[in-house]
């Protein structure tokens, strides 16, 4: 009996086959393919067997290069192996892919195809990665839909065994990998019927074995290498027929018949589009629409791209074809055309077919590709002189490649229901919609599709859910353009975005509003009222937050809005719908306990009594309208470009609007007022002791302090708070602590860290959270006034004091990081201390996303226009990238010094002497040098010699620059560890800041070598079995590297000192910073408390290793925290990453905790002994001083014993 259809996304569809047909699976996280690895790891943990009854071995590697290496080894030793990857990950696999293919080794790599980083990183889908691997000798097989992702995964695994050519099976990242669709799953019987057992055995027989030893991987010389390389030809020639044979076998088993090239359309087509990937769906819909109107058009879907089978291609293409458009989802600058185009042109020539061929690019980085665009391509083919090398889907007003298209053209039938839901990530909209799709797809005969769009912020992010369902299979792999149902789950969206632009006439509009049916109309902006009346929408309202609160659901409105959707849309009778929703709730949340189920059920049961249809008035009554995305006073680029992106209109921007080299201005986040906090901190100037802790820990730089002259207060807004500074030297001035109300995320870290409590009411502190809405306007005025207050001169401050650091201007503000982020306070501190002379090399990861993801970015400038210069190269190369910056800066400085000497006559000997001999070890010295350089510029102004111009171009390099290499633990401990180690070994003056969250945070919390023993993480669902790598001790082993392990919550002054010392150290430095993270599983409001507990428990001992101390006769190794005073459990069991395991597998958790506690004790012994070591007497000294080389070591605790 056929298995019932299921709702799956492309990643799970492919992984479900790959897992069952593999014995060794090497994994590494990268978006959007990470879920395939996560599922494999999860299934392994659950003991799920492969087709042969064994549980595959799943191993996470340090990089995709490592995964490919492990895969290669596993294949050589006879295992069936697979891996999953995307984008840069695939590029890192290329060297091994040549080897695997060159040795004719069956294997499959499943790729969720994604853009390769060029001028910018993009996590979204296109074919630039797979096209970058097309030359490796792997076969390339394309799936165009979720169903195909599972079907062709099987074809790939079966065919590789028979062809001996490894396969790269790919589908479009996000569009297919993350799309939910209703598919026929493949049973073990299906797999068994298609995979040849005989070929599995043959593969195993080729394994390296000492019992039948062979040698593979020889080195060959000019005499034979070439011939040997040609020896594989027969296999490649045979491969297409093998694939077709497997496809035929698959068809016999499942009824779904694929071909190397599948043609759809008129048998006598004159115009044909050739395409590969999910865009085929839109083209196919267009073909059917045009063909129904008598147009002779068709689409050729390329499935097996490599080896490219000319005969199959020629046979699939109708003989009647006169013109062909080839669509490539990649760009090869400088080429004659993109790869598929070139192959088609060559294919036609080699098969002696004549047709006019044009090629074009579409869909880069998941750019929408719709039937309207497909129609534009078919229309172009009608022209006498169609444009070749076109683009479609954008407006290219620079090189004029783009085809015009009519956005009003739609092909979707009336039978398909299209629903759009606008929600916040935190309100559960996406999760509920995923459940809705499952309900509709699995409990009704309908087909269903769900696709989910997220914005790039990690706090307060907006989600848009696109749901289609209806009686026919849904292959519309593009966003909904005309919706019959719009759900707006957040009332405040109405003033920020155009939620009704895609509503079709007569659509239903469901709005979550804190207003009743009789009041809501008056609360709608003018544009919304216009759209409701103009499109004749039916408006329903529910106060979902009240229902949620009453049901004990807090701010989760997911099941409430879901119930409304089912009730209004009538997909199922209400009772059935409620039953199905509860069933989905049980399925999703059942494991979390009875109490959770009950409150969700209560929310569902209470919903319908609160749902009302609004009697819409006949005319517009609004007296306000939607707000501009950015204020009018923002710079032109921010208004014209970034503001458009903020407003959701980025797709409308033409090519000319975009910088061609990826260079953007800094200081743009301040223009995007997001207003995402429900509550913000309010300062009590009487209670405040002005310690500066709140300013230090604020992840978004929204709480700031200034000391200024009281005369500034003359124009202060009413209610602007001020206090007498608690610094003796500033007592005649005034102090203000100010909050940015529209930028705050409401994390409450500041309140939690505030030490000043009221003596009358203990819960009242010097900062307290209060509702944002009433504070928004007055505090915005205060904030503007505050920003205009002058900064206190830095030389008046002691930079090593937390209290003084609060008065340093942060040059990193309002990032898109999670509310309560544990990383950003360190970055902010770095910019406060060194921001005006800072170059940052940033590894890919959280810090590159909240640091550099459009639309607006957080690095900014001071009043003088100086600030951090920031760049992201890749994930794996960040240390090397930063070293390159250092080398450039040093070389320019040296060149500048050379020119200064040469031009001494024109500059003046005294100034030259002072410039060349400047002591820039401290900030005062740097400021003096800055004045000297300004003087130099003045003296050389107007002089026109080439050498003068050269000097002026590099004169700023005479100022000491601070190069910081910033990244997470995934970079530092794993993928970039080799580079990090090498750069430390160069002895160059770079500073590395490792934001150690102990997992790959950005991709959703996968294990790294920084993950502690006993914590669960993705890829370590059973708890990490091994201890965290001691990166600090690795670096210390060089002897000349400054190393600090810091935790702001465990020692804030220690942290500040470490930053200053690291920067001052003339060689390499490494700061490992404990960064609490949302992936640790607790409310990040308590992040600082956990940092403190980590230090108290000895889990995170604070250390500094300062090689400079050696010259003073002191021990460079300083242990700065006290001996463990609380058990590890007291720290760890506050976090779900530990307690999840204690719940699911108490025995294993207890054992791992015990081992982790022993790790703590062992490390403490090593550290404390090392810190206690005595230095040998220096020459001329009689008695020993503190130092490194031991003269007396306590018995049994010698260094190196551990």
């Amino acid at each position, binding site marked *: 009996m056929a298995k019932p259809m299921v709702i799956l996304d492309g990643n799970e569809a492919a992984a479900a086959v790959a897992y069952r047909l593999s014995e060794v699976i090497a994994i590494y996280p990268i*978006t*959007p393919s*990470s879920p395939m690895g*996560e599922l494999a*790891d*999860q299934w392994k*943990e*659950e003991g799920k067997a492969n087709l042969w009854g064994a549980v595959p071995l799943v191993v996470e590697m340090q990089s995709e290069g490592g995964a490919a290496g492990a895969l290669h080894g596993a294949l050589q030793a006879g295992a069936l192996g697979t891996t999953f990857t995307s984008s840069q990950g695939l590029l890192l696999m290329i060297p091994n892919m040549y080897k695997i293919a060159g040795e004719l080794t069956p294997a499959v790599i499943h790729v969720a195809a994604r853009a390769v980083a060029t001028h910018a990183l993009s*996590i979204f889908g296109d074919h630039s990665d797979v096209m970058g691997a097309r030359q490796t000798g792997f076969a390339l097989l394309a799936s165009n839909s979720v169903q195909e992702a599972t079907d062709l995964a099987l074809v790939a695994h079966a065919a590789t065994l028979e062809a001996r050519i490894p396969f790269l099976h790919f589908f479009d990242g*996000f569009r297919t990998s*993350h799309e939910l669709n209703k598919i026929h799953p493949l049973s073990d019987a299906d797999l068994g019927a298609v995979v040849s057992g005989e070929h599995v055995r043959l593969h195993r027989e080729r394994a390296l074995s000492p019992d039948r030893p062979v040698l593979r991987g020889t080195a060959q010389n000019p005499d034979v290498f070439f011939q040997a390389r040609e020896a594989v030809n027969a296999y490649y020639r045979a491969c297409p027929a093998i694939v077709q044979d497997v496809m035929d076998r698959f068809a016999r088993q499942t009824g779904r018949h694929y071909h190397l090239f599948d043609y759809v359309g008129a048998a006598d087509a004159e115009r044909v589009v050739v395409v590969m990937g999910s865009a085929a769906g839109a083209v196919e819909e267009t073909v059917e629409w045009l063909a129904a109107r008598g147009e002779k058009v068709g689409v050729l879907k390329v499935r097996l791209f490599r080896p490219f089978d000319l005969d199959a291609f020629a046979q699939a293409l109708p003989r009647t074809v006169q013109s062909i458009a080839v669509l490539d989802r990649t760009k090869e600058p400088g080429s004659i055309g993109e790869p598929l185009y070139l192959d088609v042109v060559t294919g036609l020539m080699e098969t002696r077919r004549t047709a006019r061929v044009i090629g074009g690019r579409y869909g880069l980085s998941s750019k929408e590709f719709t039937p309207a665009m497909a129609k534009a391509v078919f229309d172009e083919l009608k022209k006498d002189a169609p444009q070749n090398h076109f683009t479609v889907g954008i407006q290219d007003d620079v090189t004029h490649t783009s085809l015009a298209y009519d956005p009003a053209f739609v092909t979707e039938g009336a039978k398909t229901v299209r629903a759009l839901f606008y929600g*916040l*990530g*935190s309100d*559960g*909209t*996406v*999760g509920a919609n995923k459940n809705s799709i499952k309900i509709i797809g699995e409990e009704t005969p309908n087909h269903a599709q769900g696709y*989910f*769009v*997220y914005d*790039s*912020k*990690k706090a307060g*992010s907006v*989600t848009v859910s696109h749901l289609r369902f209806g009686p026919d299979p849904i292959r519309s792999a593009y966003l909904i353009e005309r919706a019959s149902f719009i759900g707006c789950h957040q009332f405040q969206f109405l003033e920020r975005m155009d939620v009704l632009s895609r509503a079709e006439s007569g659509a239903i509009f469901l709005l979550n509003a804190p207003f009743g049916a009789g009041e809501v109309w008056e609360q709608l902006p003018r544009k919304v009222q216009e759209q409701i009346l103009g499109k004749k929408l039916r408006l329903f309202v529910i106060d979902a937050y009240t229902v949620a609160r009453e049901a004990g659901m807090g701010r*989760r409105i997911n099941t409430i809005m879901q119930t409304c959707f089912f009730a209004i849309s009538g997909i199922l009778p209400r009772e059935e719908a409620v039953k199905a929703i509860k069933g989905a709730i049980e399925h999703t*949340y059942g*494991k*979390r*306990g*009875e*109490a*959770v189920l009950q409150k969700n059920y209560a929310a569902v049961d209470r919903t319908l009594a609160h749902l009302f249809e609004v009697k819409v008035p006949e005319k517009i009554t609004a007296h306000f309208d939607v707000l501009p995305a950015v204020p009018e006073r923002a710079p032109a680029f921010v208004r014209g470009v970034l503001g458009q992106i903020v407003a959701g209109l980025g797709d409308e921007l033409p090519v000319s609007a975009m910088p061609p080299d990826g260079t953007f201005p800094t200081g743009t986040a301040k223009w995007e007022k997001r207003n995402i906090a429900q509550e913000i901190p309010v300062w009590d100037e009487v209670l405040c002791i002005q310690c500066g802790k709140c300013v230090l820990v604020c992840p978004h730089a929204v709480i700031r302090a200034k000391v200024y002259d009281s005369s500034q207060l003359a124009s202060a807004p009413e209610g602007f708070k001020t206090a007498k500074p608690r610094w003796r030297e500033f007592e005649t001035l005034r102090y203000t602590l100010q909050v940015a109300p529209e930028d705050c995320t409401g994390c409450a870290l500041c309140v939690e860290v505030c030490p000043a*409590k009221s003596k009358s009411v*203990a819960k009242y502190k010097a900062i307290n959270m209060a509702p944002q809405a009433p504070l928004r306007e007055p505090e915005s005025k205060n904030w503007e006034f505050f920003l205009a207050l002058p900064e206190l001169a830095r030389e008046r401050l002691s930079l090593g004091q937390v209290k003084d650091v609060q008065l340093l201007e942060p040059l990193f503000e309002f990032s898109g990081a999670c509310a309560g982020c544990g990383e950003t306070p360190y970055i902010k501190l770095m910019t406060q201390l060194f921001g005006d002379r800072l170059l940052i090399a940033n590894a890919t990861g959280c810090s590159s*996303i909240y640091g550099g993801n459009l639309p607006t970015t957080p690095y900014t400038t001071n009043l003088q226009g100086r600030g951090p210069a920031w760049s992201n190269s890749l994930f794996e190369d960040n240390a090397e990238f930063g070293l390159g910056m250092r080398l450039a800066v040093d070389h320019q400085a040296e060149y500048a010094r050379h020119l200064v000497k040469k031009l001494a006559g024109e500059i003046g000997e005294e100034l030259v002497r002072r410039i060349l001999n400047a002591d820039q070890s401290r900030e005062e010295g740097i400021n003096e040098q800055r004045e000297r350089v300004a003087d130099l510029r003045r003296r050389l102004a107007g002089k026109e010699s080439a050498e003068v111009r050269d000097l002026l171009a590099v004169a700023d390099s005479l100022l000491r620059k601070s190069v910081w290499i910033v990244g997470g633990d995934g970079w530092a401990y794993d993928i970039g560890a080799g580079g990090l180690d090498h750069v430390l070994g160069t002895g160059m003056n770079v500073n590395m800041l490792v934001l150690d969250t102990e997992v790959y*945070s*950005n*991709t*959703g*919390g996968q294990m790294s070598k920084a993950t502690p023993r006993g914590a*669960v*993480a*993705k*890829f*370590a*669902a059973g708890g990490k079995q091994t201890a965290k790598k001691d990166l600090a001790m690795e670096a210390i082993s060089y002897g000349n590297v400054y190393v600090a392990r810091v935790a702001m919550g465990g020692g804030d002054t220690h942290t500040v000192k470490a930053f200053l010392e690291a920067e001052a150290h003339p060689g390499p430095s490494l700061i490992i910073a404990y960064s609490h993270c*949302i*992936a640790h*599983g*607790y*409310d990040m409001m308590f992040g600082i408390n956990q940092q403190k507990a980590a230090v108290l428990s000895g889990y995170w001992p604070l250390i500094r290793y300062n090689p400079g101390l050696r010259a003073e006769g002191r021990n460079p190794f300083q242990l700065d925290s006290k001996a463990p005073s609380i058990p590890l459990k007291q720290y760890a069991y506050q976090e*779900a*990453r530990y307690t*999840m*395991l204690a*719940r*699911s597998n*108490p025995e294993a958790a207890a054992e791992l905790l015990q081992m982790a506690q022993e790790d703590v004790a062992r490390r403490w012994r090593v550290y404390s002994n090392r810190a206690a070591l005595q230095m040998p007497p220096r020459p001329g000294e009689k008695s020993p001083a503190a130092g490194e080389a031991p003269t007396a070591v306590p018995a049994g605790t010698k260094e190196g014993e551990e």
Partner: protein
Amino acid sequence: MADLSTQYMGLPLKNPLVASSSPLTESVDNIRRLEDMGIAAVVLPSLFEEQLTLESAVLDEDLWRGAEEFAEATTYLPDLSTYNTGPDGYLELIRRAKHSVAIPVIASLNGVTPSGWVRYAKHIEQAGADALELNIYTIATDPLRSGADLEEDCCELVHQVKTSVRIPVAVKLSPYYSSLTHMAKRLDHAGADALVLFNRFYQPDFDIEGLEVVPRLHLSHPEELLPRLHWVAIIFGHIKGNLAVTGGVHSALDVVKCVMAGASVAMMASAPLENGVRFIHRVHQDLEHWLEEHEYESMRQMLGSMSHRAVPDPAAFQRGNYMKVLSSYALRLR
């Protein structure tokens, strides 16, 4: 040798030493060692309905946080096959304890909702517990609810549980009743097979430097025995069910006092926690010696021998101590 055996809620016990509900009885290994040392029955730590509810809510919140907010990270923690959010872990402890020892295993339950009390009581019975101790204690913080209301709820609860399970049910009480004797009588009517006097609780302490409330639970002291003896001596004979003392039992002499006051069993937790499980063996030996030395034939012989019914001056139990201290002879003469 004197006969130490006793009966508690119909369960024949080899002696009156019972391990009270404490961290000591969390592990089957400890329970086995307690049996080896001579303990006659164990009370397991309480299954807290509120804790299950809270843990479920916390887990849900932890798994929810950050989920479906960001395209690259639609979740932040792996999805495990089970989280044991229900009572399964506790029920498993009952099963394993029953499997491992011959002595009676008494489960303990602290519920929140009426349905929760009954549901979990049934689960506990099905898991094989020999008896159930209801750990009834809620802090009355609602100014609109009277003591009478709370007592009524309590009795109703005991009635409901008793009618839902067949195993004997004890009720562990706090001392904070206006009329403890009356309450004891009502619970007796509601079907309680025994009353356990008294519960000990976490008490909020103040950290006056950090201005924070810090919950504390100290181990019991021997002097805590006195109020328990006092109330057992008063209640003994007023109810059909048995009495048990828990709190302040630190020696064989304390056990003797408990039984003389009218308790069928004396429960211990702090003493073995402090001195190790072997301490039970010493108490057992001391008890035997004491009975022999004082020529008691059995424990039953002394049951209630110093209760209010049996002492020459019942007023000793009926007045405050200071009266006695100031004019003890005068009181006696009355």
